[in-house]
C-alpha cells in the first residue's frame, strides 16, 4: 500500500484525489475475492465453479459502480474505504457460498442457500451508498435532522419489541413476503447522527460546567441527564430485546462521542462504571445473558448440557483446527457449528479455512477501515463531521470487537453480525450506507478549501501523521 503513504490529511491546493489508487485497490479487492470463490469451487468439486463469471462480474460491477459514484460525487474521498469494504464483502460472499455447499447444511430441513440473496443485498447496499453520495452533498445537512433522527432511531429500536423473538433475541421485525429486517443496524447510523448533532450543541455546557473532585471533573447533576437517559435506554434494550450487542454498541458509541465532544476523561470513567453496573445488574436476573457468560467462562464444561456452551466450544474448535495456515477454503469442517455458521459465526470459518494468517489479515482489514474512519474524523473541519465520523467508526470498531471477541471467546458472545462478511441483509446494507457517510465526510475534509479560512481545529489537524 505504498501508494498512500504520503497522505497529509488535508491536501494542499490541487491535492491528489487518489481516485486511481482507489481503482487499483478495487481491482485487487475484486481479484482476491474471485480467487477465493474459485478456490472454494476447486476444493469442493475439483473444478472452477460455474457461477464464477457471474459472481466475478457482479462483484466487479458493484465495486465499479461504487468507484464511479465516488469519482463523480465525492472526488476527494478516502481511497481505502471503498476497496476495503468491497474486499470484505467479496470474501464474505465467497465464504457464504462455500457454506451453502456444505452437505451437512443441505441435509437439514429448512436449508436455504444464502449466497445469491447476499449478493442482492450487497447490490442494494452499494445502491444505498450511491444514493447517500448523490443525495448528501454535504454531511452537515444531517445536522438539521438531529431530533428527527432521535425519534426515528427510537422508533426503529423499539419496533422489534412488538415482534416475536428469534433465537432468544428480539431484534428482528418480520415483514410478510419480504423477509426480516434488523432495524438496529440502521438505528446505529441514525443514532450517531443524533448524538453528533446533540453533542455539538451541548458540548460546551457539558465540558465546562463541572466541579473538580479527586482529579476528575464531575459533571453537574443536570448535565448527567443525557448520559443517564442513553444508559437507561441501553438497559431497556438489553432487558426487553435481550440484545446484549446492540446495548453495548449504543452505550459505547455514546461514551466515545461524549468524550470526544467534551474532552473530559471523567465521562469515560462514568461510562465504564455505568456499563459495568448495568451489565452486572442485568446479568443477575436475565437468564439469556447468564447463559452467555457461563458459556464464555468454560465452553467445554457445558458440552451436552447448554446449547450456548456447545456452540461456543464448537466455534473455538473450528479456530483451533485451522491452525496457522488453515485447511484451505472449502476443506474445513466449520459447518459443524451448525446454527448461524454463516452469520454470527462466520469468522470461525475464516479461522478454520484461512487459518491464523487469514484471520489476522481480515482483522487488520477491519482495523484499517476503523483507522480510515478515525483519520476522517481527525481531518474533518467541522465538529459535527468529526463527531459523526468518530461515532460511526467507533461503533464499527466496537461492533467488530464485540463480534470477533465473542466468537473467539475473548468476551461473552452477543448476537451481532460481522460487518460486510456475515450473511444478513440489514447488516450489509446499513454498513454500506455507513461507508457512504464516511466517504462523504472524508471528501469534504480532504477537498481543497475554496477559501483559506483556517479554523483552530484545522490548524492542529495539519500536523497529524498516521
Amino acid at each position, binding site marked *: 500500500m505504498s501508494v498512500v503513504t504520503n497522505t497529509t490529511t488535508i491536501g494542499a491546493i490541487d491535492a491528489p484525489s487518489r481516485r486511481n489508487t482507489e481503482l487499483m485497490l478495487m481491482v485487487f479487492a475484486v481479484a482476491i475475492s474471485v480467487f477465493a470463490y474459485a478456490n472454494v469451487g476447486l476444493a469442493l468439486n475439483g473444478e472452477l465453479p460455474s457461477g464464477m463469471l457471474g459472481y466475478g462480474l457482479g462483484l466487479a460491477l458493484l465495486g465499479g459502480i461504487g468507484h464511479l459514484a465516488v469519482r463523480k460525487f465525492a472526488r476527494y474521498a478516502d481511497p481505502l474505504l471503498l476497496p476495503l469494504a468491497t474486499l470484505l464483502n467479496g470474501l464474505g460472499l465467497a465464504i457464504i457460498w462455500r457454506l451453502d455447499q456444505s452437505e451437512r447444511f443441505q441435509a437439514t430441513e429448512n436449508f436455504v442457500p444464502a449466497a445469491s440473496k447476499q449478493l442482492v443485498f450487497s447490490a442494494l447496499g452499494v445502491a444505498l451508498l450511491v444514493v447517500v453520495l448523490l443525495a448528501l452533498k454535504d454531511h452537515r445537512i444531517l445536522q438539521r435532522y438531529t431530533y428527527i433522527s432521535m425519534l426515528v432511531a427510537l422508533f426503529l429500536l423499539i419496533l422489534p419489541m412488538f415482534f416475536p423473538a428469534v433465537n432468544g433475541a428480539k431484534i428482528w421485525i418480520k415483514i410478510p413476503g419480504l423477509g426480516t429486517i434488523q432495524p438496529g443496524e440502521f438505528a446505529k447510523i441514525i443514532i450517531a447522527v443524533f448524538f453528533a448533532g446533540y453533542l455539538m450543541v451541548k458540548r460546551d455546557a457539558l465540558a465546562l460546567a463541572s466541579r473538580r473532585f479527586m482529579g476528575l471533573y464531575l459533571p453537574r447533576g443536570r448535565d448527567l441527564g443525557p448520559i443517564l437517559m442513553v444508559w437507561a435506554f441501553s438497559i431497556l434494550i438489553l432487558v426487553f430485546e435481550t440484545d446484549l450487542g446492540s446495548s453495548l454498541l449504543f452505550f459505547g458509541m455514546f461514551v466515545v462521542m461524549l468524550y470526544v465532544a467534551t474532552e473530559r476523561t471523567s465521562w469515560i470513567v462514568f461510562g465504564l462504571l455505568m456499563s459495568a453496573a448495568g451489565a452486572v445488574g442485568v446479568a443477575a436476573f436475565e437468564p439469556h445473558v447468564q447463559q452467555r457468560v457461563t458459556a464464555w467462562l468454560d465452553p467445554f464444561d457445558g458440552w451436552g448440557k447448554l446449547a450456548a456452551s456447545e456452540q461456543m466450544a464448537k466455534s473455538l474448535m473450528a*479456530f*483451533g483446527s485451522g491452525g496457522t495456515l488453515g485447511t484451505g477454503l472449502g476443506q474445513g469442517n466449520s459447518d459443524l457449528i451448525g446454527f448461524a455458521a454463516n452469520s454470527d459465526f462466520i469468522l470461525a470459518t475464516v479461522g478454520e479455512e484461512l487459518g491464523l494468517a487469514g484471520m489476522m489479515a481480515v*482483522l487488520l482489514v477491519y482495523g484499517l477501515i476503523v483507522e480510515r474512519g478515525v483519520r476522517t474524523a481527525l481531518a474533518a473541519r467541522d465538529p459535527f463531521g468529526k463527531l459523526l465520523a468518530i461515532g460511526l467508526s*467507533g461503533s464499527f470498531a466496537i461492533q467488530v470487537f464485540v463480534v470477533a471477541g465473542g466468537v473467539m471467546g475473548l468476551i461473552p458472545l452477543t448476537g451481532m453480525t460481522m460487518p460486510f462478511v456475515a450473511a444478513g441483509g440489514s447488516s450489509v446494507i446499513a454498513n454500506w450506507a455507513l461507508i457512504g457517510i464516511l466517504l462523504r465526510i472524508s471528501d469534504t475534509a480532504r477537498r481543497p478549501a475554496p477559501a483559506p479560512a483556517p479554523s483552530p481545529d484545522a490548524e492542529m489537524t495539519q500536523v497529524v501523521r498516521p
Partner: protein
Amino acid sequence: MNKPLRRIAIFCGLLVLALLVRVNWLQYVRADELNANEHNRRVQIERYAHERGNIIVDGNPVTGSVETKGSDFKYKRVWKNGPMWAPVTGYSSQAFDASQLESIEDGILTGNSDQLFFDRTLSLFTGEKKTGGNIVTTLNSAAQKAAFKELGNKKGAVAAIDPQTGAILTLVSTPSYDPSVFAGNSLKDAEARQQLLKDKDKPMLNRALRETYPPGSTFKVVTAAAALENGLYKDIDDKTNSPLPWRLPLTTGNLANEGNIPCENASLREALRWSCNTVFGKISDDLGNQKMIDEADKFGFNEEIFTPVRADASVYPKDNRPQNAMAGIGQASNRATPLQMAMVAAAVANDGKLMQPYMVAERQAPNLDVIYTHEKEQFSQPLSGENAQKLQQMMETVVENGTGTNARIPGVTVGGKTGTAQHGLNNSENPYAWFISYAKTDSGSPVAVAVVVEDSQANRDDISGGGLAAPIAKAVMKAVIDSKK
C-alpha cells in the same frame, strides 16, 4: 477535539490488538489442544476421510475399507471373515473408536503417524491421494483357519507361536464377533454392539489374550522346569522322593491324583506322562513359593505382555504352603492366558530361550515402502538348553505314550502336556480342557501352541485336555508344518 480523537484512535487500535492477540492464542498456542479435543468431531472425520490401510496376513489383507454414503465419515472398515480375525485385528468403528491392532497401529492405518511424515510431505507435491499404510502381521492363515474350524461352536481359545522367533501364528477366540456389524455410526450399528455387549457368552472378549484360566496340569511343565533349574532333580528318569498318598502341607487332606496311577516315587518323565499331582505338588512345596514365582516370572507370568496388543498378566501368586503346592499343579490362584501357556511350550521347544511374542512383522507406508521391520528379541531364558532338552523328552513321552496321544502327527516329533483345570466352588463347574504342545522338525521347532476349551455343554468326563484340546492343537501344528512345505 483532536486530542480525544487520537486517544479514541489508540483505543480502537487496542481493541484490534486484543483481537489479534486472542486469535494467535487460539490458533497458534491452543491449536493442538483444540484440534485434539474429545468433542472435536474433526478428529473422527479425519480418521475416516481416507481409505484406511489394511492388516495383512500371508500377503492378503484381512480387512478392507469401503466408501459409505449419508454420513460425514467417508470410509468404513470391513473385514474378510471378521469373527475369525477379530481377536487379531480388534475393531475399528466410526462411532465406537477402535481396539487392539486397529487402535495401536491407528497412526499407520490412517496415514497420520509421524513415521509417515516424509511420505506425506512427498505426496503433498506429487498430489497422490492420501491413504493409510499397512500392517503386515506374523499370523499364519492356514493355522488360524484350522484353529477356528476345530474350535467350532465350542467356547475357547487358541494361541500359537513360532518358538524360534516369537512370531504369533494363531490367535483365535470363540465365540467371536464380526467387527463389521458395528463399524459404522448408524443406529443399527449401535444396536448390534449393544447386542454383543449383552451376550452372556462375551463374544467380544479376546480369550487368547485377555482371559486368564487356571492352567491345570499344563503348568506342571513350568514346575518340572523349576525342579530341573533349581537342581532338585537332575535326571528325569531317576526316582523322585514322592510318597503316595501325599498330605498337603499344613492341612489334614491328601492331594489326590486322577485315578489310580503309578505316582509313588515316579520319575519326572513318568510323573509328567501320567500327570501326577502328588509329584508336582510336592516339587512346588519342596522348592517353596519364591522359587516357583521366580521360575514362573521367567516364563512371563505376573506381567502384561505386549504383542503389541496387550495380553493380561498371568498370575503365579505369593501364597501359603498348601496353596503354593496347589498352584504348582496349576490350581489354586494360579491363572494363565492361552498366550502365556503357548509361551511356556515355545520356551521349552526353543531349547530354553523364550522369544518376545509379537504379531506385527512390518509396517508399510501407503506406497508399500517398509518403514519398520520387527527384529526378533529374546524375552528371557527360563531354563538352560540342557534342561530344556530333558523337558522336551518328557513332553514327547506324554504324546508318544501318555495322556496326549491324540496330538501325534506322523513323521513329526511332537511334545505336549494335557491339562484339566477344575474351577468353580468345590469344582462344581465344568473343568477347562487344556493342551499345550510343540512340533519339531529337522530345522528346530516351527510351532508351539496352547489350546483351552471351556465348553459347558460337554460331559464332565469328556473334558480332558487329551480328548477335547489335543486334536485342535494337532490341527494347528499340522497346518503350520504343511504351510512351510
